[in-house]
């Protein structure tokens, strides 16, 4: 197979070339990552960061750089037949405990070979590594017969997958392969469970609290459903093998006054999905849970607006995805990894959601995950990324296209 041999043939030469590229660009790459860290880019506030990414892509000689109507930055290298898209999201979660960090969360300080700051792991190191990889691919001629798209997308933290789905549908990009560059400690991620946020509503009849018999208490009606959900959740826990899960996360009631019978009750369910648990499957499951009650359910939509003013709705049904171990993309990733690190990569699955729900879950584009940084440090105090991870990912992204 071509991909297996891609490195062996020119092994020594390529290794030397890659080492040279890393050596030449190392300082600039690290510096750019630090610059990205120093710009705050909470979800829907990515404008300044996007401008910086756009500028850097242009400086590095990208063939085309576009900021789409949602605010995603997409750079292109080459115009070959085989199309590969690297995706990193630009937004980060907030910092509420800046005083307790060992280093300024928006400083990008390097201590003992680790860069500290919000987004070092999730996922500005990935943006920097992919942006520079595009340049390296071009300068090494790896773009021959390939088209490389580097996307820096918006609003992942609260709207998982929506931005990438937009790029792949309305944006008109049709890659053959997608690499989700979320942190993986340089292991190769082959998928993750999906997630559905569901809301269940039931109405009652209001009445004054002194005469409960005149009303129909919505909390009592919901209680029957809660009991069924608990049993169902327990059943799922008892199952063996790969499995979904069901968590009741919120409950609320509404009443006309404090002394009135509630006429509405809502609960929210966090349903983790495995491959095969699609919308139809969940519809059946919910129909069973609500059978004989007057309750209704829906997928919970989260509405927002991107920094460009474009309305974005997260329809919270995010399907699970997985890619086979012998898929050509997986094999190419293993080959690229071996060529750089002289060993086999660890294959695993993420335990969180990524934009992969859009690329593979919804749009069925073969997808793998690979990124710098330990995913356990995401969203945490003292978030940091090893400089060696940043450089390793840079090399991996540079080499991967040549293995496909």
């Amino acid at each position, binding site marked *: 197979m071509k991909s297996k041999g891609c490195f062996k043939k020119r092994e020594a030469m390529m290794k030397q070339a890659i080492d040279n590229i890393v050596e030449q660009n190392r300082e600039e790459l690290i510096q750019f990552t630090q610059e990205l860290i120093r710009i705050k880019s909470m979800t829907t506030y990515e404008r300044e960061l996007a401008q910086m990414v756009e500028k850097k892509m242009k400086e590095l000689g990208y063939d085309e750089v576009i900021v789409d109507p949602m605010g995603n930055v997409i750079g292109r290298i080459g115009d070959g037949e085989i199309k590969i898209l690297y995706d990193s999201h630009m937004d980060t979660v907030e910092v509420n405990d800046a005083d307790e960090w060992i280093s300024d969360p928006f400083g990008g300080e390097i201590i003992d070979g680790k860069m500290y700051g919000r987004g070092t792991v999730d996922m500005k190191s990935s943006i920097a590594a992919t942006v520079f990889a595009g340049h390296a691919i071009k300068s090494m001629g790896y773009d021959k017969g390939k088209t490389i798209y580097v996307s820096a997308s918006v609003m992942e933290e609260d709207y998982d997958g929506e931005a990438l789905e937009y790029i792949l549908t309305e944006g008109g990009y049709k890659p053959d392969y997608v690499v989700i560059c979320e942190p993986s400690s340089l292991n190769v991620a082959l998928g993750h*469970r999906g*997630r559905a*946020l569901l809301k269940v509503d039931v109405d009652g009849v209001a009445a004054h*609290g*002194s*005469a*409960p*018999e005149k*009303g129909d*208490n919505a*909390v*009592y009606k919901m*209680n029957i459903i*809660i*009991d069924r959900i*608990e049993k169902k*959740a327990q059943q799922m*826990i008892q199952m063996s093998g790969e499995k979904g*899960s*069901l*968590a*009741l*996360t*919120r*409950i*609320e*009631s509404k*009443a006309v006054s*404090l*002394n*009135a*019978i*509630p006429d509405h*009750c809502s*609960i929210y369910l*966090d349903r*983790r999905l495995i491959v095969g648990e699609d919308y139809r499957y969940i519809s059946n499951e919910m129909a069973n849970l609500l059978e004989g009650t007057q309750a209704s359910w829906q997928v919970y939509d989260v509405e927002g607006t991107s920094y460009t003013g474009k309305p974005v709705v997260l329809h919270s049904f995010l399907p699970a995805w997985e890619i086979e171990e012998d898929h050509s993309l997986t094999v190419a990733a293993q080959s690229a990894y071996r060529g750089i690190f002289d060993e086999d990569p660890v294959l695993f699955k993420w*335990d*969180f959601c990524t934009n992969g729900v859009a690329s593979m879950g919804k749009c069925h584009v073969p997808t793998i995950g690979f990124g710098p940084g330990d995913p356990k440090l995401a969203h945490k105090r003292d978030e940091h990324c090893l400089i060696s991870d940043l450089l390793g990912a840079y090399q991996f992204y540079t080499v991967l296209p040549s293995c496909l």
Partner: protein
Amino acid sequence: MEKAEEYKLEISQFLRDMIAIPSESCDEEKVVLRIKEEMEKVGFDKVEIDPMGNILGTIGHGKHVIAMDAHIDTVGVGDIKLWDFDPYEGMEDNEIILGRGGSDQEGGMASMVYAGKIIKDLGLEGDYTLIVTGTVQEEDCDGLCWQYIINESKLKPEFVVITEPTSLNIYRGHRGRMEIKVTTNGISCHGSAPERGDNAIYKMAPIINEIKALHENLIDDPFLGKGSMTVSEIFFSSPSRCAVADECSISIDRRLTNGETWEYALQQIRNLPSVKTADAKVEMYSYARPSYTGLVYPTESYFPTWVLEEDHPACQAMVESYEGLFESKPLVDKWTFSTNAVSIMGRFGIPCIGFGPGHEDQAHAPNEKTWKDELVKAAAMYAALPLLYVNKYAK
């Protein structure tokens, strides 16, 4: 009665003035000042406003202390679209007065002040001191004002007439109530791995079932009927949007009949098997909202049941006054809602008897109204009652 009829115009005007001044709970200062002006005008012997903001007007200097109470706060107007006219501007014709507070219960205040005037005009004074109170925050926390008056102002009347609307019937009790909170605690975890946590909402579910069942099995009372309990609210807390809830609470609206105390009602819930299994916390809510003067007088949200025996002198005197004035037999019954008597009689054992202009079903309703002839008749009753009581029933 004739004298009262003469004051129909003044009573109506005074009531309309009060209606025109919005006076929701904790914002009653302006209406209190208007009442003070009217009390002084008609010749009360003394008019005071206490530190909580309650107004107390006195007629006479006799031995037997009798009080008559109207709360002068109102509820809000609710959905303004349901009103056919401005709730504060109000309106009137020959028979009725409309506006927020007409029945509940600035009407009672208007009748009492003019009862004071009638007593003075007709020389109905005797060996009694009549205290006419306009009290605050009743809609928010019934009876709190009288906890203050009894505890802090050391006022101990022989009985208190509650002038909340009774359609001119005589009411001698109502059910009490309390607000209870039940809380379960669990262990939070990420929504993707519910098996690592212990969901507080699941722990609450069997408690709700048992509370529903307990409601069906509460004790009965021949006069007041059964108590009741219902879950009025459910809420939770958890560290993030996609985490298992580590705390869940319900509020219970508990109506108490004769013989049910707060200890009894709390113990009843604590004894539920599901509450024991979940080790749930069962407690009373409390109230600590400052009055318009800024005074904070914290109390438990417990409003005890009260019933005055039919043969009690206060009830007998009321019945006899009624028969004397209106030449018919009164209906002696009970309120459905709650009044300041929850503290006066429920907590302190001071006898209460209810008689008031306006109708209970007008309370809190849009297009609230009251009836002018009831205002006049109530004024006559309030003027006649104290002298009849001291002459015939007081010891």
